[in-house]
């Protein structure tokens, strides 16, 4: 029994222990932050689902808003209005955005390309309410609010998103493929049409969908351009069109609990639409990436 225990010990102590504790604490905090973010998302979605339960039924999407003092009613007018606003905005923003994206990534010299990219980034950073003021001054002052003005405002918000995403997909198409086309003696434009565009086609659809997802919920640019709208289903874009985001906004400011419930239900419709589009866009993006890189 003369063997003595070694006089050192492998358990952390003192400084090392403190360092390990700090380490564990900070990593725990990082994990906690991620949990918090996901929890907030779930809390939001669950609130919307729970609170809209009473108002969501077939009438809600097929009826127009109830007359003052009556109950029930729906948001059919806003659904049609939002659909129309988005379609008209797409008709303007998709061609311009896609062509601007093609130009900067395929045909422009580095200088002009950098300028256009910068301008698109700047446009992307302009607060949407300021775009509302711009279109108010351009198309509403001296005339009146119209669905067309609202669509133009939405198109301006879509434009940089579509152009930048188009650029990004086109940049994924390998240079060797383009060079192979050019080496066959085909012009740059034909090479682009026959080789680059088919590879990037899915990506351009993604770009469009991302743009739609972004503007579907935009309220601020519509306040000044298309907010004072009738309670009936209308497809006349020369008059103000009702829309889902503006409906949610006005109902949420109302003191009437029934309108609150309708606002929640409209929010649910909007969220489902936006998230579905985002998911489809992601799927297309993944496919486009595989395609562009040669399956």
């Amino acid at each position, binding site marked *: 029994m003369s063997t003595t225990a070694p006089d050192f010990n492998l358990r952390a102590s003192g400084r090392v222990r403190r360092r390990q504790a700090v380490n564990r604490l900070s990593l725990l905090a990082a994990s906690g*932050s991620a949990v918090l973010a996901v929890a907030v998302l779930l809390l939001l979605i669950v609130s919307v689902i729970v609170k809209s339960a009473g108002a969501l039924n077939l009438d809600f999407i097929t009826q127009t808003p109830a007359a003052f003092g009556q109950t029930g009613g729906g948001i059919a007018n806003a659904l049609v209005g939002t659909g129309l606003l988005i379609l008209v905005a797409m008709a303007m923003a998709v061609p311009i955005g896609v062509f601007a994206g093609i130009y900067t990534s395929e045909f422009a010299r580095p200088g002009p390309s950098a300028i256009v990219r910068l301008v698109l980034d700047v446009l992307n950073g302009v*607060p949407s309410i300021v775009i509302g003021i711009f279109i108010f001054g351009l198309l509403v002052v001296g005339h009146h609010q119209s669905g067309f003005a609202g669509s133009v405002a939405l198109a301006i918000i879509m434009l940089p998103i579509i152009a930048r995403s188009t650029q990004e997909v086109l940049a994924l198409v390998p240079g060797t493929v383009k060079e192979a086309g050019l080496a066959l003696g085909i012009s740059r434009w034909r090479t682009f049409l026959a080789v680059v565009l088919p590879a990037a086609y899915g990506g351009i659809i993604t770009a469009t969908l991302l743009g739609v997802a972004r503007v579907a919920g935009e309220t601020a640019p519509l306040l000044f351009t298309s907010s004072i709208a009738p309670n009936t289903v209308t497809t006349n874009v020369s008059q103000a069109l009702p829309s889902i985001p503006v409906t949610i906004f006005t109902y949420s400011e109302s003191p009437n609990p029934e309108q*609150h419930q309708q606002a929640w239900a409209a929010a649910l419709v909007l969220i489902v639409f936006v998230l579905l589009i985002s998911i489809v866009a992601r799927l297309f993006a993944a496919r486009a990436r595989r395609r562009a890189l040669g399956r």
Partner: protein
Amino acid sequence: MLAAGFCVVLVGLLAYKVFDQAGSAISTFGLGFLGNSTWNPVINKYGAADFIYGTAITTAISLALAAPLAIAIALYLTELAPRVLRTPIATLVEMLAAIPSVVIGLWGILVLGPFMQAHLEPWLHSVLGWIPLFDGDPSQVGLLSAILVLTIMVVPIVSAVTREIFVTCPPELKEGALALGATRWEMVRTVMLPYARSGIVGAVILGMGRAVGEAIAVTQVIGGTAGIHASLFGSGDTLASRIASQYQGATSNLQISSIAYLGAILLVIALIANLIARLIVSGVRRPRTGFAS
């Protein structure tokens, strides 16, 4: 090409038209508009000081809350999360950015507001009431609600950009730190954070652009009253929310022009913030990724 030229012209026209509409307010009030806190349609006098204060305080505090949270989330996603969970959690955080602001605002008034009045604000008051920020009567709407709503909207933006930068951090540097006996946190603190520092600054400025320009959700929860007071529990107004709340109420041309003036201030702030952020972020990404590969 025509389309690209059109984009350039469009931005020019946008700036021109906003300043053009603000013209009569700019010539009437001049730069004094920025320092004047009257907003009175009855005597037709307008100033932006209260809203500049509201924008500054809500943006500053929401960024102070959002930045550490977002960096921590980016850290979790690049370093800690099990590989199978990384993409799903990153997607969920990005979905938070996809939720329309009007829906977050709706949640802000009807769910967050009552909770603030009943629980959070009384608690903050009892614990931190000696700080003027947390003094005053709890209420459903106010600056603090706006700050929390903005935080929710800014976190996903900052964390997405920060994550992209963390991913490009050269593994040999991280491994080097670990091999020297650093704990994981020490590796993060001494290698990853310094590496990503300027990128994070860019990301936060990008988030600032978003917070400054957010109109709808803030209008819904902030209460919409002019006035400068220290308490975060009281209501206020920001540049963007004042514009949004006046959309139907403007009566005189000078009032409309003053609203456009607020928009012009917003435009200038957003442009400067965005340009700085883009310069920093793109400046970081290009040389460093080249170095890492």
